[in-house]
């Protein structure tokens, strides 16, 4: 058995003349929570679908839990729990009926017992006879997670599982993910939330179908070699405008009353900012470059390189 739950090389998928995924290679270790980040339409969903055999890659190869993603899709499907981006259980079935269906399809030996236990664990035993369509978003998401864990998969593929879910439910969800990872289940999870990204063991960042960075959060931040400073005060919009073409400044991002200013040339950036802070009597502090700074930086650079400029 390889150490990797997912090990794919050069995955490529084209729809019409648009290359949605372009040479994506990534490795996810067993028992690891792997965050998959990238702007909308960057190819995250398509990549995940290729990994679990729902789409055939145009090029590239790889393994999922040691099974070939091209020829052994059936084996993979049996051992992977896939949570779709859009809730995809049956609204016109009750909670128990949905879980029961999943258990039957995966030929679970102790089906009845397992369904009841799952309902208990979810805290949904009292609502087992309620129609799924009447659940709120947070409960639907919990049900979906429970349903894709029902057959005890070794790998979870979660496609934006917390989109539209409130912060408390999100926190509970991530605690559950960490418990699962501690039990040796590997998780690949796509997300747009930075706080979630920071809770992953490893991250990959994809834009325009290309993988731009891969590693731990610290590694990804370090790799971009960005120096960041924070400017405080009023009139940040005008300030950002003036800074746009200033020497050493590559990016400005507003966070409330503070403006993050980043650039690769740390020395020039510092001179520019110190001069400006003195002129305008502003408070200036050196800052930690955050994941968000780095991701915005990478996205802009990739847009300059690959994108036609227009983003959806």
């Amino acid at each position, binding site marked *: 058995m390889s150490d990797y739950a997912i090990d794919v090389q050069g995955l490529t998928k084209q729809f019409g003349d648009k290359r949605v995924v372009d040479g994506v290679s990534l490795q996810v270790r067993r028992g690891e929570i792997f965050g998959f980040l990238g702007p909308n339409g960057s190819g995250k969903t398509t990549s995940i*679908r290729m990994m*679990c*055999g*729902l*789409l*055939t890659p145009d090029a590239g190869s790889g393994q999922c839990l040691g099974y070939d993603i091209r020829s052994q*899709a*059936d084996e993979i*499907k*049996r051992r*992977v729990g*896939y949570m*779709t981006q*859009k*809730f*995809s*259980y*049956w*609204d016109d079935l009750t909670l128990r009926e949905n879980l029961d269906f*999943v258990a039957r*399809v*995966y030929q679970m030996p102790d089906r009845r017992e397992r369904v009841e236990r799952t309902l208990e664990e979810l805290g949904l035993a009292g609502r087992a006879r309620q129609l799924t369509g009447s659940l709120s978003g947070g409960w639907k998401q919990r049900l979906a997670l429970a349903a894709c864990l029902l057959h005890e998969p070794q790998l979870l593929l979660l496609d934006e599982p917390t989109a539209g879910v409130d912060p408390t439910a999100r926190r509970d969800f991530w605690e559950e993910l960490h418990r699962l990872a501690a039990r040796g289940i590997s998780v690949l999870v796509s997300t747009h939330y930075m706080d979630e990204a920071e809770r992953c063991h490893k991250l990959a960042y994809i834009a325009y179908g290309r993988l731009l960075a891969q590693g731990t959060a610290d590694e990804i931040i370090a790799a971009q070699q960005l120096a960041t400073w924070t400017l405080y005060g009023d009139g940040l919009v005008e300030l950002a405008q003036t800074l746009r073409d200033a020497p050493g400044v590559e990016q400005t991002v507003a966070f409330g009353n503070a403006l993050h200013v980043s650039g690769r040339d740390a020395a020039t950036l510092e001179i520019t900012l110190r001069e400006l802070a003195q002129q305008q009597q502003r408070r200036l502090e050196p800052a930690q470059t955050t994941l968000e700074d780095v991701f915005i930086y990478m996205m802009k650079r990739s847009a300059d390189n690959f994108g036609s400029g227009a983003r959806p």
Partner: protein
Amino acid sequence: MTLFSLARWWGIVLKEFLQLRRDRITFGMIIGLPIVQLALFGFAINADPRHMPTAVVLHDHSEYTRSFVTAMRQSTYFDIAGSLDSEEAARAALAQGRVQFVLMVPPGFTRELLRGERPALLIEADATDPAATGMALAAAGEIAQSVLRHDLRGPDSRLAGQPAPFEVRVHRLYNPEGNSQYNTVPGLMGVILTMTMVMMTGLAMTRERERGTMENLLATPVRPIEVMTGKIIPYIAIGLIQATIILLAARWVFHVPFTGSLVSIYCAALLFIAATLTVGITLSSLAQNQLQAMQLTMFYFLPNILLSGFMFPFRGMPQWAQYIGNVLPLTHFNRLIRGILLKGNGWWDLWPSIWPLLLFTAVVMAIAVKFYRRTLD
């Protein structure tokens, strides 16, 4: 706020046009349905069927019998398909629907004719559908009045006057009273089954796709054949319930004779339901959404109702329409159900309509499995 803003209204109009243009199948239907309807109603349907296959059983040969046969052919109602040896062979041909009429000339016909004894010719008609036989039988009576005027010359010309020198006796088999309900009510069974079965299964698969549950289904280890057949089973049950309701009405409300066995009826219904459900499943793998599935159902339903012999006599249609009709399962089911109820046909007589249904089901099922996408590609 204005009560009616042209700009707002125009926004709606434009949006509808754009959406209509994107929906290829709907657009195709808008163009295709009128063309198909025109072709079917304009060319295929004929309420006065001619050229119906007729067999002859001749126990007596003479110029008079030949004249009569020739006159039948010239009337254009009858196409002489061939000659048979016995009454039994003739009955079998009628039961299986290979011929619509059998003309029987008894032994000694010519001798009795010339003696002035007014012998009788017998025409046996498959009168399951009274509309198909009525005109032809009327024509046969007129032929008898006039046909021998030229042949009877010299001393025999005394026979040529009124009444005709021989009699044409007509046996309307299977539906002697010419009750058109006996033909329509069993036919309705297939029509109702076609409509509901195709539509319900057609929606079954597109619904999964529209609601996004298809992706979930594809991500599980379920196999295509399991999905297809699994989805079909509940509708088989529904189909059998519908069949039962129609049969009860046929028996107790319309008093249709139940000549054949109930077992054969249900076997035929089951076979037909299977054929129809595979059509539904196939349409649903072609359609992108539920609306398209409904439209494809209509597109399938139209030729079935018009070309199957349900509404208009099958034999009245031109050859090309009969070829199409022979591909449709409803055509064969109509023959089966009428054959069982009215003719009391056994398995041997039913076989010519059974194998096309089996073949149809197998072919369509193969198409369905081929079109079912295991991936989202």
